[in-house]
């Protein structure tokens, strides 16, 4: 029996247009069998959370190269809470300094953050493991 596919929203919040990383990750996740929705550019946290809920995703992955991580992650997390959608995993990547990663992980505003040079396979493996996709009780509403 085939398992339901993991659904991921790759989001590009803020005003920055550097979408190389977001697109490479989106394609790698798709090649790994996931259902990937790419938000497109210049999205607000509100737009991203709305799309995530509408698309019923399991994971939101935010790509940030503008230095705005310390405002965007807490905002998206807060919106997810407001919408009772905290079960959606919030992860991200980009040019994010180590000390910011520490703060965001500790505060729970991000579950995992991947920096430049991370093999896409590591991200695929992390998501699958975290969602327990290889063990059965994973299903979609």
């Amino acid at each position, binding site marked *: 029996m085939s398992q339901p596919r993991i659904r991921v929203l790759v989001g590009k919040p803020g005003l920055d247009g550097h979408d190389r990383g977001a697109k490479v990750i989106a394609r790698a996740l798709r090649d790994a069998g996931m259902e990937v929705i790419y938000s497109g550019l210049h999205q607000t946290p509100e737009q991203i959370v709305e799309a995530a809920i509408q698309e019923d995703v399991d994971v939101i992955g935010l790509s940030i190269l503008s230095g705005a991580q310390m405002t965007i992650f807490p905002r998206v997390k807060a919106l997810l809470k407001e919408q009772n959608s905290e079960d959606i995993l919030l992860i991200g990547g980009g040019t994010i300094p180590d000390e910011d990663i520490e703060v965001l992980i500790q505060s729970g505003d991000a579950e995992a953050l991947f920096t430049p*040079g991370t093999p896409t396979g590591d991200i695929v493996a992390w998501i699958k493991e975290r969602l327990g996709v290889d063990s059965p009780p994973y299903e979609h509403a």
Partner: protein
Amino acid sequence: MSFSAWQEAYRSLRERKGPFMTVSSVPIEPLYSPDGVKGFDYEKDLGYPGEYPYTRGIRPNMYRGRLWTMRQFAGFGSARESNERYKFLLSQGQTGLSVAFDMATIMGYDSDHPRAYGEVGRVGVAIDSLADMEVLFQDIPLDQVSTSMTINAPAAVIWAMYIAAAEKKGIPSHKLTGTIQNDILKEYIAQKSWIFPPEPSMRLITDIFKFAREQVPKWNTVSISGYHIREAGATALQELAFTLADGFAYVEAGIKAGLDVDDFAPRLSFFFNSHMDIFEEIAKYRAARRIWARRMKEKYGAKKQESLLLRFHTQTAGCSLTAQQPENNIVRTAYEGLAAVLGGTQSLHTNSMDEVLALPTEKAVQIALRTQQILAYETGVVNTIDPLAGSYFIEALTNQMEEGAEEYFRRIEELGGVLSAIGQNFFQQEIADAAYRYQQEIEQKERIIVGVNEFITEAKPDIDLLKIDPEIERGQVRRVQALRQTRDNLLVQRTLAELEQAALGTDNLMPKIMNAVHAYATEGEIVAVFKKVFGEYREQAVF
């Protein structure tokens, strides 16, 4: 020994595991010989430096006359902080300025706009009005320093602020030298900082051409940019072909707007990337000069020599830098800078080692500038012009680049030209495919990146990073709000209304923008007028 005898000898020996390919995945032969450049004609294919088709360089003397301009891209925080950084760079021997704007400025939002929240002063300097521009260039002689500004969708507005700031210092616009990037086509293709749809965006650009011809004749009105196309994942050939295709699209737009090609083509300049593959990059620059000269002369009928010259700025490849062992980036940048100089660049930005992690610290920027100074004063590569000409390998690669670019031009033409190809996601898909292939090569170790997939150390990098104080955003918000209280708001309203009328018609928009800017209308207010008249662009993203 004949070529075939050498081939036999080569094949009888062991070849180490490849693949032997450029950073753009182009396979490379073990040896290049006269066979690879059959039909090579020195006069026709190269010419002397300063002579058509300018393959060897645009000036007869090149770096024997003057060195390239060492121009480090900088800007962060408020105008006050950036002004200090510029003065530091000038005091360290830098010879031109290059302004980085923050994302809010790039996208046409004032610092107090909700969309600007968290982005003010982060990746560049925040400029809301002429008042900020005046602070940005305080104590800097704008008639002696050339200034490059990386601004695109709202380029007309920011340029107007620069001209106005100079005027307020008593410097007339015809004395100003510098560049606005103003290359909207590569925004749709790669960098994605667009605001308006393509057609009104092209109108703003041709209005700038006309205004510059009369008022700011020494200004470079577009910096046709391959840099961002490459950073988005394109190969060297794609960078070359797409950039030149954009250039020809601007030429056609200018001609269509009623200008003589020789009235604006001399002010077009280029901006290329320099990635890690030294010979591929050199071939790219040489091919670029030759293709531009040939097409401008043969296809567009340019007569002035300056219209045929492809002048370019180079920046080393940000995408080649690694977050792992960041000090290694100094070495990467040095090789990339070398390639740019061997390729005959007119100006150069060398990246700082820490730019993969944050904006550069003063120390990192100083090392990057010193890298250029070492190239210029210690290595001897500047002593002779186009030193690699006549190399079988370089000439073969240069020819291959030109042929590949011509093939892309044919495909773009079949798609109906650059704007139409953008609408069909042609460039975007080509670039996304190349970026993905590159990533796959790294993950499968077909490509070794030192410190990333080989020669790894576990230690975390121990370098200081520049931090942007959140107070900067609050201060900037207060300043723009205070400005709106103190300026002559009736005058602002009037100039904005006149701008709207002009936008609805066909008059040149630059004089109206200048009036609004002088009245201290903010960037966001002026852009809002254009959004109302022109609408906003939306892309259908592909990956």
